[in-house]
């Protein structure tokens, strides 16, 4: 039978250490909405989403109350829109109309975000995909909660450098289109390499083509819980440290597993995966940076940071894997600068640079995330950053991503405010040495060799 200390520990995690389920995300296939008429397509999409996800938010709230665990976001992901709308949309206006249908449907069912205004172009772009990408500045400035992602490379296909080059311009255009709001549109846009099909987190979530009609994926969080647990590991060796992280990750993931199974049962929608990520928020004590500092760094960003993060990421996975049979998505430690108090401080003091963050992305769960850069950064430089990050993902067979915000009208010394979970960030300096010639060559970088691993 449960004892009072175990119950106290769980409630302490929830009340003091900010344990929460970050998101219940319902993936919905829109493949059965396909038609060649844009208004009919929009109607089909609206109807499919509002029918399938009708009870999602109410169910999430009921689970929250029954178990006493906060579920911060309820979200929807859909089939990449380039596949759903490619046959119908012939103009940017058409794609914008589809985005508005997604926005309306998501608001109707009351979710926080909807992801999947996406294109998978890891080898090459079709005309429809190119058009979708070109519609992004309008889509992300005219809609409120639609999120977009573009997969520009993979380990199997190499990197589509035409898409990388185009995305540099698009990121700039999205920033300009949302200039009066600290270029907030870029917060809703992720450029991936090796994008997973079942990611419940935003802005990069979409419902992959390998998925079924509908699925429930859950993203857990809990850097605060790991941080608190590490207080007991102060001064102890790595074996003790790793054991502490694994135990904590196990406990956190079990809560996610419970919530996912319960949501799946109540909604009558199959359970997909648990994404066992440590997802920080800007709140004090809910920081991955703080965890790294408790492992032994004076401030995140200094020497030792990459090794500490590699160990943290691995232990989180090892602890979480045993807690759920279906682990997927991104799973690991996120390092979004603007969403993490200690990262924000380290970036502000100059201790954390983009170059160090790039090294950290080799061992963390995703990539360069939520980084505010000067508004006058060139499109070519942004393409270069995307290419570097995609190369890390391609060669290391991992998901990497870029979500940088070239904040219009701001430079180093200023800061950008994104609000809520998205946080705020000092503008970080970027190496502006030109890579124009490299990114404009055209074509693609071939897939890497899979032997001779050195």
């Amino acid at each position, binding site marked *: 039978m449960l004892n009072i200390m175990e*119950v*106290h520990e*769980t*409630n302490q995690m929830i009340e003091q250490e900010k344990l929460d389920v970050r998101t219940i995300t319902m993936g919905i296939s829109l493949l059965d909405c396909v038609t060649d008429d844009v208004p009919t397509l929009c109607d089909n999409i609206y109807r499919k989403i509002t029918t399938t996800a009708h009870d999602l938010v109410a169910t999430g709230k009921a689970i929250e109350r029954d*178990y*006493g665990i906060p579920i911060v976001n309820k979200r929807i992901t859909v089939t990449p829109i380039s596949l759903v709308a490619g046959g119908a949309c012939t103009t940017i206006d058409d794609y914008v109309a589809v985005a508005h249908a997604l926005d309306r449907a998501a608001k109707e069912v009351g979710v926080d975000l909807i992801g999947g205004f996406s294109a998978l172009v890891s080898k090459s772009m079709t005309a429809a995909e190119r058009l979708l990408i070109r519609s992004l500045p309008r889509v992300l400035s005219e809609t409120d909660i639609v999120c977009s992602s573009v997969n520009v490379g993979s380990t199997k296909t190499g990197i589509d450098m035409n898409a990388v080059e185009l995305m540099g311009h698009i990121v700039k255009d999205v920033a300009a289109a949302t200039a009066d709001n600290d270029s907030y549109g870029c917060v809703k846009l992720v450029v991936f390499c090796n994008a997973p099909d079942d990611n419940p987190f935003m802005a990069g979530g979409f419902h992959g083509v390998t998925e079924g009609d509908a699925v429930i994926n859950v993203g857990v969080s809990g850097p605060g819980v790991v941080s608190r647990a590490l207080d007991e590991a102060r001064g102890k060796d790595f074996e003790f440290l790793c054991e502490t992280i694994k135990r904590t990750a196990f406990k956190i993931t079990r809560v996610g597993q*419970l919530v996912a199974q319960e949501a799946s049962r109540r909604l009558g929608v199959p359970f997909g995966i648990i994404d066992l990520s440590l997802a920080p928020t800007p709140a004090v004590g809910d920081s991955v940076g703080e965890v790294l500092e408790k492992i032994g760094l004076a401030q995140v960003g200094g020497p030792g940071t990459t090794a500490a993060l590699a160990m943290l990421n691995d232990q989180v996975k090892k602890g979480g894997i045993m807690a759920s049979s279906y682990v997927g998505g991104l799973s690991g430690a996120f390092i979004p600068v603007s969403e993490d108090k200690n990262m924000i401080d380290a970036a502000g003091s100059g201790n954390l640079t983009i170059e160090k963050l790039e090294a950290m992305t080799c061992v963390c769960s995703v990539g360069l995330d939520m980084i505010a850069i000067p508004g006058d950064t060139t499109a070519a430089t942004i393409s270069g950053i995307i290419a570097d990050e995609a190369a890390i993902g391609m060669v290391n067979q991992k998901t990497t991503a870029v979500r940088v915000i070239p904040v219009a009208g701001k430079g180093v010394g200023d800061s950008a405010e994104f609000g809520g979970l998205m946080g705020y960030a000092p503008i970080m300096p970027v190496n502006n040495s030109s890579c124009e010639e490299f990114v404009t060559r055209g074509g693609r970088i071939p897939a890497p060799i899979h032997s001779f691993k050195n």
Partner: protein
Amino acid sequence: MNKAIITVVGQDTVGIIARVCTYLSQSDVNVLDISQTIIDGFFNMMMIVDYSDSDKDFGTVVDDLDNLGEKIGVRIRCQREEIFTKMHRI
């Protein structure tokens, strides 16, 4: 059997258990076990209850106990048991 865990945390005063139990009895919620201790200077009580015979919706019991706690000046939470068993039992 549908088990839930009720926890009461706060300053110890006369009649906390009595008032919680009165409510549970009126709601046909059966108390299976009670334990209490002091953690960090605060009174902590835990009850394991069975609510399968209660005609009240579980959410109503959660809200009622929350309100009762506010009246007494303590924090009362009522949560389904699985969140604890999942976390602490393999």
